[in-house]
């Protein structure tokens, strides 16, 4: 519609922006890595990304609805240590149970946020803190044992490395979810919950479902993390608090809700795990890495903001829905004090 260049139009899509960022780092990695990239190197990178991809995808689903969820890191920590301890003797059964724990946490968050109308940031921050503590109670020092069958399931080979297959499955599930009623409505909640409610949609049910689904994904992320690192560690999950949000930011989803794609977040998570590899071959220390990541996030958000500026303005203009119970007029007013 607007007479802008092809580049500007392409950059309006957050997933495309995230893909470009990842491509830059992948190219850098392949050029800099001595002896080039091997299947082994790529597989280990993808495997390590897998739990972050899962957790960040869950966070993204919540952010689409205009809410926040800080509990991902807590759920990952708890399910990770559960897999290494109580669930390790159950074999296969451990996996669905860990996922179930995540779902229960999601339901708990959803209950407090949607039914009790408490602020999501406070609620999910609290669940994060509680679960982080619980994880340390369950397993104070790293260790434990992960069921070998589960390790093999996630890390093994099936023509191609399984990590690739799992990433494709996640992408596919997202494409399916996006086309479910709940997936469509979840976008709508983030755009203008009041307007959606006036259109006859049960907004609360959608939000509740999204929190539960996100919790499920965190549970799965914790279990996968246990399989990938092959041990239990209550503190390993804590980096996920920031990393999930960093992945969302690089992935181009709007933190105000209503726009973005899980594909972008997946690419963002992959970027975050490839950055250390690139910096490592450059011989740059781990501390500098954090500085670099922070700057990358600002750059990604900035480019996104500039690219979608005019769109944002027009979108805002449509969102003029009157709020329920908004005071309207006044005919007279009595003197109070």
């Amino acid at each position, binding site marked *: *519609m607007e007479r802008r260049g092809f580049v500007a139009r392409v950059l309006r899509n957050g997933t495309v922006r995230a893909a470009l960022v990842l491509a830059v780092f992948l190219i850098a990695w392949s050029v800099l890595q001595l002896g080039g990239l091997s299947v082994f190197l790529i597989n280990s990178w993808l495997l390590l990304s897998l739990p972050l991809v899962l957790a960040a995808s869950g966070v993204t689903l919540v952010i689409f609805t205009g809410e926040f969820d800080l509990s991902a890191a807590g759920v990952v920590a708890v399910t990770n240590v559960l897999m290494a301890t109580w669930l390790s003797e159950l074999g296969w059964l451990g996996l669905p149970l860990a996922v179930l724990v995540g779902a229960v946490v999601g339901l708990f968050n959803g209950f407090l946020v949607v039914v009790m109308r408490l602020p999501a940031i406070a609620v999910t921050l609290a669940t994060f803190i509680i679960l982080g503590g619980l994880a340390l109670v369950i397993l104070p020092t790293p260790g434990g044992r992960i069921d070998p069958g589960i390790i093999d399931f996630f890390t093994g080979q099936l023509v191609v490395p399984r990590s690739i297959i799992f990433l494709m499955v996640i992408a596919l599930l997202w494409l*399916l979810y996006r*086309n*479910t*009623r709940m*997936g*469509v*409505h979840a*976008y*709508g909640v983030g*755009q*203008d919950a*009041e*307007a*959606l*409610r*006036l*259109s*006859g*949609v049960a907004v609360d049910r959608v939000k509740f479902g999204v929190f539960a689904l996100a919790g499920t994904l965190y549970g799965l992320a914790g279990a996968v993390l246990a399989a990938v690192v092959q041990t239990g560690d209550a503190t390993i999950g804590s980096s996920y608090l920031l990393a999930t949000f960093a992945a969302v930011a690089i992935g181009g989803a709007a933190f105000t809700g*209503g*726009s973005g794609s899980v594909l972008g977040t997946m690419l963002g998570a992959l970027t975050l795990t490839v950055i250390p590899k690139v910096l490592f071959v450059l011989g740059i220390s781990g501390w500098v890495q954090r500085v670099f990541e922070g700057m990358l996030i600002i750059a990604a958000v900035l480019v996104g903001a500039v690219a979608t500026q005019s*769109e944002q303005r*027009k*979108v*805002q*203009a*449509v*969102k*003029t*829905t*009157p709020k*329920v*119970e908004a*005071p*309207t*007029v*006044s*005919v*007279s*007013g*009595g*003197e*109070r*004090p």
Partner: protein
Amino acid sequence: MSLLQVSGLAKKYGDAIALSGADIEVEAGEIHGLIGENGAGKSTLVKVLSGMVKPDAGDVTIGGEQLRLGHLRASRNVGIRTAFQELTLLPRFTVAENLLVDELPTQLGMLRRRALQSRAADILQEWDVTDIDPSTPAWQLPLSAQQRLEIVRALNGDPRLLILDEPTAALPDTAWIFKHVRAAAERGAAVLYISHKLAEIEELCDLGSIMRNGRIVGQFTRGAFDHDDVISQMIGRSIDIAFPPPLNRVDTSAAPALHVESLAVGEQVVDVSLDVRPGEIVGVAGLEGQGQREIFYALAGATGLTSGRVSLDGQPADLASPRSAMRSGPGVALVPEERKREGLFADMSTTQNISVPILKSLTRFGLVRRRAEQSRSGQAAEEHYIRPDYLARQIGSLSGGNQQKAILARTALTGSSIMLMFDPTRGIDPAAKLEVYKTLREASAGGAAILFYSTEIPELIGMCDRVLVVYGGSIVAELTGSAMTEDAVMRHAVGKTLQEAESI
């Protein structure tokens, strides 16, 4: 038995009365017009019927059955569909998704995109909307298309009660909507049609009601629609406040302090030109949403202006932000519309609320000198009739009138001599109103140029040297002296042309 029966609806928001015993009946197949001034209670009535607001008292029955009030789904389930004045479209959804959001076609849980598209296309075709592509996101549509989409959504629900709230605000072509509203009525729907535009009501409606002060004050029927009568019933408010007399005479030869030429703001304001001289109070009148808010906010630097020239004391104004507007030449200060949201720091003291613009001059080594703050704020408060014992109190705990006086005191401290007053007396008690009038008089005697918008027309007539009437984003009339009557203002405000208004 009428399809819709509303009896004794009452609703208060704090001290403000929105509805006070509203009764209305609409038969199946009837198109019922509803008109009234700003704040007459129309939109609250719409919100009650749509289930958005629970009234304090009163009953609504649909087809003889009691409607569960304050419940969105209950209203929907009995077949009430509303096209809201403020649209309820989801901006990033496509037209198709917006049309079918509550009944998305799915198969095995998956959305059937193709079916969605084709069903949306069918719906658009059914309602003669041929120029909107169902796959376009709503935000990319022009405002008039968005408005038609909102109306189609209401029509398409096969409503028993169809409510259209200012449906033609952004819709120049009434033929389309009239055709479909009539067809809906022929199918047996009761239609409640709310509009500021008398000509539309006259052409379309079988019967109508006039609303004022939260209740129905008059009725009219097709063929017996007397504009004069309707207008006088719409206003009908008695002037029971004595306005303080002017303290100064406007020097009509003086150069304007505020000069606006061909101002345009988005789609809401088209080509507005006006002048305000030092010591002059110029009134702005208009029904809700005619662009007055955009004019005031653009002049205050709070929103961008699309085009036009604004000069202050003959110098081009810098209206990039409220801060630069205040520092530009003699300075422009705005008293905003929504006192609580836009004007107050509710948890801070009255003193602190007043001193905001001069804080910089009150600081030493970066710290605010509290005693100096108290004395400067106290002085400004005294000049604005605020009792000294309110100064230390949290401003949020004061009455609306005292809050507003504090905002005026703050505005005075900005030192700006161009004041934009957007409905400064809204929702405040009569005593406080009188004090607001007095401070306006004193400010203008001190040489301030004041642009004054009010929803209460008598107030404009009582206080202003001239009144400009806005309609559809431009100034349609300028009234002075004896031509400045409530009747004349309302005639122009409801969109009658100058000749028509004069010929009556």
